[in-house]
């Protein structure tokens, strides 16, 4: 079973940043920190341009369509649906467990996200299955966004 119970043992050294795989998420390090603040509240969000309405993924600080920097945060529509998935059984980077189910998840706003599907057995995952956000804690008060199946067999 691929679950979040499987330990993520990220390589985090107090003096070396280069092996830490988790993004920096605070205002002093990252201008899209709001994404992570929203995530901590259980909301999956991204940026929409106030000038031209373009929705970006990943979130931006400048609209790639019109170069406006007037952006606002909007929620992803629910649910996401699996376009394709795979089960990685070998060759994951150190600190990441195997097996891991990776999926491409499509949303009705036209955006696609890649993320692990957790808390299920690989045999339960199907193309087209609906998934729900699962916010997972990461070291140093950070968070990541995984997904779970909405309807488990």
């Amino acid at each position, binding site marked *: 079973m691929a679950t979040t119970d499987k330990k993520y043992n990220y*390589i985090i050294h107090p003096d070396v940043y*280069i*092996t830490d*795989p*988790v*993004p920096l998420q605070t205002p002093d390090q990252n201008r899209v920190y709001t994404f992570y603040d929203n995530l901590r509240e259980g909301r999956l969000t991204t940026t929409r341009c106030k000038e031209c309405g373009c929705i970006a*993924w*990943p979130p931006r600080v400048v609209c790639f369509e019109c170069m406006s920097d007037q952006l606002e945060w909007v929620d992803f529509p629910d649910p996401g649906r699996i*376009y*394709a*998935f*795979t*089960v*990685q*059984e*070998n*060759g*994951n*980077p*150190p*600190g*990441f467990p195997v097996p*891991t189910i*990776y*999926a*491409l998840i*499509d949303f009705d706003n036209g*955006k*696609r*996200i*890649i*993320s*692990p599907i957790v808390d299920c057995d690989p045999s339960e995952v199907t*193309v087209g299955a609906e998934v729900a956000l699962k916010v997972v804690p990461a070291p140093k008060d950070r968070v*990541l966004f*995984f997904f779970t199946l909405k309807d488990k067999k």
Partner: protein
Amino acid sequence: MKQKRVAIVAAGITRFGNRQATFRDLIAEAGKATFDNNKNIKPKDLQSFILSAVYPERAAFQGHPAPLAAEWCGVRPSEFHCRVENQCGSGTTAIRTAYCVILSGLTDMVMVVGAEKVMVPSHGEIFLNAMAGCDREWEGCFGVTPPPLFAMVAQAHMKKYGTTEEQLALVSVKNHNHSVNNPYAHHQKGASLEQVMKSRPIAKPLKLFDCSTNTDGAAGVILTTEERARDYTDKPIYILGTAQINDGYPWVNYPKDWSSWPALKIAAQKAYDMAGISPMDIDVAEVHDCFTISEIIECEELGFCEKGQGGRFVQEGLSDHGGQVVVNPSGGLIACGHPFGATGVRQAWEAFIQLRGEAGVRQVKDAKIALGHNLSGLGEHHILIYGRN
């Protein structure tokens, strides 16, 4: 006015493999091999140097590698030098850069060396480094590396076109059997269908033998103008066409249907138009088989077969010796190994020896036109077309 052309006048390569050598050792070996290939050219004849290398900062803890590499090859550039990085497509991008610099008139001769030290002492770190080539903040943070991404490409192609795991495996069998005759390849023992199908699972449906091999290696080429080429060799190889495209980033922003790579089709057509040829004119194709599914889709998008028929194309032997076009006679990335920055230059080396009739046992009979293709993502492609005339 006749379009000015650029030619390759020398090419050399190191043994690929888990090498007992540093990043700079590999560069020096490739430099020597390239100058040894054409005794009419000395390092001091070169005023320009380009290094293709993807992550020496991570794997060799070495930044600013271009002047180091030039020095290790005996070159003191006074006209142009730089390092080129475009992930797995760096080598082809570096040769394109040399092409542009020569046609600009800034310089008339450039050495391109592609080199990568991949096999660091802690094996898991190789996969950690691979994460950095994806979008580290939105993909790499989950441990995503190329194998699961290309596994989902395979899933999409199998679902839409009925491509089978056995057809994927046949790409690996073909390329492993090609590299039996390539003394520079990482793998030279060949592989059976059973061996590929029974190799350990990596990311479904991809197994170990469906994946290109992590390896150390380097390769070099020297390019010059058509006019100067004849001063150095009777058998220059010309660049007939080239194209490059990037359609979306990161991976989730490539076009939605991952079984089709429309960007490659567009780039290929541009390169064919520039060369004044059609896909049927290609005798030798060194394509980017980072995974078996990649070669199958590339054969489709490059126009060697109909869309969706890439699996059947390899199954029927049409991409092997005696077929329609010999795809990856060197063994490709799967059997030569894939030292990222070196791969595109290694492809140029294969094109060079094939078109000069110097490929030995794996020589493609009467090869006149060769194609080199690198990718750095489903929507990011780099193409060079080489010709004898």
